[in-house]
């Protein structure tokens, strides 16, 4: 990047951050009677650079440079309430709701709200605790075997030992199964403390432990 590019990035990122802070505050103020867990983040610059290099997207077309994430309890009605209140009250130029709770995006389930304000796009991710745990587990798996796996790209298994390949297959299967069960939990509207929800938590705990506690140093 040239000094001019850096100066532009500096200026843009300050503007993004100001807009993001104002949106986050606006959303937070919609839930003063029962505060929600909300945070905002500006995309990792390296990921942004990678995205711009690997696609034909322009900077103005990248949807998730800035965004907020809300994590709610494992209750459909709570997730619905948060989404509804945001879209009914937030003052933006345009918005679009992408509900991935029934039809997942390669296993990922959540509700995203894309907001457009002053030519900027802001992505609001509304996840239940379980959807968030699945997303984090899948992300950690992606860091091990290649981030493309999260978007359906095949894993280059030859990089791994036979033992690791067996573990990878188990983790992949476990993630797919957990995602299906999270979809089912939504469809059947399970209670937060139901056995089914606890079981999915526990399955994801096992997968996380396989990812985190295995010595993956055998890969060449």
């Amino acid at each position, binding site marked *: 990047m040239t000094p001019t590019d850096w100066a532009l990035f*500096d200026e843009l*990122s300050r503007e993004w951050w100001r807009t993001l802070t104002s949106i986050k505050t606006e959303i937070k103020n919609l839930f003063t009677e029962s505060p929600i*867990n*909300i945070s905002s983040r500006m995309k990792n610059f390296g990921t942004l650079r990678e995205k711009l290099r690997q696609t034909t997207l322009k900077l103005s077309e990248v949807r998730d440079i800035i965004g907020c994430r809300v*994590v709610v309890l494992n209750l459909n009605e709570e997730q619905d309430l948060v989404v509804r209140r945001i879209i009914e009250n937030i003052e933006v130029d345009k918005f679009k709701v992408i509900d991935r709770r029934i039809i997942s995006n390669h296993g990922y389930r959540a509700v995203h709200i894309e907001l457009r304000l002053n030519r900027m796009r802001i992505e609001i991710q509304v996840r239940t605790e379980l959807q968030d745990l699945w997303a984090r587990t899948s992300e950690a798996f992606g860091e091990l075997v290649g981030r493309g796996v999260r978007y359906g790209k095949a894993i280059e298994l030859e990089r791994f030992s036979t033992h690791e390949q067996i573990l990878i297959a188990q983790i992949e299967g476990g993630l797919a199964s957990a995602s299906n069960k999270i979809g089912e939990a939504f469809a059947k509207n399970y209670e937060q403390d139901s056995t089914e929800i606890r079981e999915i938590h526990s399955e994801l705990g096992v997968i996380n432990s396989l990812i985190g506690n295995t010595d993956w140093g055998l890969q060449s």
Partner: protein
Amino acid sequence: MIVIVQYARQQGLLLGIDRFTDAQSDEACDRLHELVKPNTDDNVEIVMLSADSEEVLTKTHGKYFSEKAMRNIRAQQAPVN
């Protein structure tokens, strides 16, 4: 609060953390650029986050604030006997 994390993806570990108040967003942006410009390592994520507290960030961005991820940072911050 505003937090800037430097995170090693493959190792799942935080390499550094800077904390700012909401009023210090300009200083936080300066620090972000100071960290981002020389970084050429794709394994290192540099992310600027904001929430009411670190507890909220643990809930929404657990990846950066898990026990494992924070191990290095806690070791650096531990008092020396």
